[in-house]
């Protein structure tokens, strides 16, 4: 599929999904309602388990020595709760202030909880990685190429002379960053997303700030 058509299709699907599941904007003590039923179930687990008191309502402002779930690499590697779930069920009794155990949580609850944590992390990392301060940083094109063809596996879907030819030149640095991070609508979510968009959202949780700077340097050098 042509990259433009594919991107347009992804955007249309995501917009339709977002419209169908338009969230209420009324904030409560657990933050804003989530955009889908699964994510809202996950938010309920997150809030009723009082995760938010230590890890933050939106994963920012972690308190009481709790892990920073916005940046913890383990969360970025998690797939549907396979890493988060065992920790939640067993708790962390050795911490300075022990994290309680939740041994009775069902696989469905763990899956919902993990989906919500990933959703919050994607929203948060997008905000962080598109902050104005990022514009002043300059990456290394060589490192960006290594990421593109290596750990990021970008080359399994994209190539500079192929689908990306002529695309990169249309964007300034800020727009290129936004498109690279989340090539979909502002409220794009993993649930129901195309494989391409879902991959970008997963990467969004795994990029370091330097990874993004380097990728942009690599793409801009190829103009």
């Amino acid at each position, binding site marked *: 599929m042509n990259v433009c058509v594919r991107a347009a299709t992804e955007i249309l699907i995501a917009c339709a999904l977002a419209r169908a599941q338009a969230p209420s904007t009324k904030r409560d003590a657990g933050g804003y309602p989530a955009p889908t039923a699964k994510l809202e179930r996950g938010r309920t687990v997150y809030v009723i388990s009082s995760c*938010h008191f230590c890890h933050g309502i939106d994963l920012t402002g972690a308190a009481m*020595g709790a892990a920073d779930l916005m940046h913890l690499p383990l969360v970025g590697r998690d797939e549907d709760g396979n890493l988060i779930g065992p920790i939640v069920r067993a708790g962390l009794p050795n911490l*300075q202030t022990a994290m309680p*155990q939740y041994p009775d949580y069902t696989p469905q609850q763990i899956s919902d909880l993990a989906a919500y944590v990933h959703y919050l992390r994607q929203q948060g990392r997008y905000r962080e990685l598109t902050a104005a301060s990022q514009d002043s940083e300059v990456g290394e094109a060589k490192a960006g190429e290594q990421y593109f063809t290596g750990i990021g596996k970008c080359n399994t879907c994209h190539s500079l002379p192929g689908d990306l030819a002529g695309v990169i030149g249309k964007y300034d640095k800020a727009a290129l960053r936004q498109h690279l991070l989340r090539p979909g609508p502002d409220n794009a979510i993993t649930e129901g997303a195309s494989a391409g968009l879902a991959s970008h959202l997963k990467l969004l949780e795994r990029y370091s700030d330097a990874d993004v700077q380097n990728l942009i340097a690599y793409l801009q050098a190829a103009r």
Partner: protein
Amino acid sequence: MRVRAQSPAKLSLIGGIPFGVETFSFHDLPPAGDPMLIPTLIEDMQYAGLAECEIMSGHVEPMGSYATGWWVATRRAPGYTKMREDARRWRLTVPMDYYSKIRKQFEDAGLRMYYYNVNFNETFTDEERDRTFEAARALGVDGFSSSTVLSEAKRLVPFVERHKMYVAMHNHNNLVDPEQFATPGSFETALAMSEYFKATLDIGHYVAGNNDPVAFIEKHHDRIVNIHIRDRKRNNGRNMPFGQGDTPIKEVLRLIKAKRYPIRCYIEYEYGSFQSSREEVKRCVEYCKEALAQK
């Protein structure tokens, strides 16, 4: 500097027991340093019908508690060293009327701060420890409640003796680290160090560590200044709405009432809810009222 004690406030008595709140319970306050933090806290206490509190240092000082070194994990965070130094500099230079103005806000509202919750730790300098005791005097509190460790308790002995102000050790439920307050033995080790060491028994954490709060209160009631009331399950279990966990809240309250122990009972709300904190604190108070009303 001599500072007058706080003027009398209305007591929030339930069954004859003075009730209050650990201000950690109010999770939706403005951030540290915001001028609306104390007025909001006062409003929340009035809403919940509680006249006294144990106030967290993060609700008094303009920097969050994380800047004061208690959380070991936080010490590894980028920028921590500067943040900690800034916090120390602030403590050593802030005029004492910063604290007395906060005290006046409570007095004007007819409320009282009984305990200053400061988590003393090895990142404090001696000068900073002294200054923190002076701050507590200016706030008008009776003493400190502190999540601390045994090695820091040893360091605090000359300070409590010199300032003649108590520090009440607050427990969590880490049973692995022998430095932590979590077991009867850890409390007893500290209580033997100085008559100015007391206990703030968190009955929910105590139960989560598979200990018996009723037995501890019966044995050490003369050294317990207040309890934190929360309901957790045993075996490092979760926080639950009052009455749904394993913590014998009713038994503890009825014991304190029956024996007329001079122990203040403070709500600590930490189970999750979509309601505001003050609604949940009020709900916790209602539970305690019912518990003490039953025969």
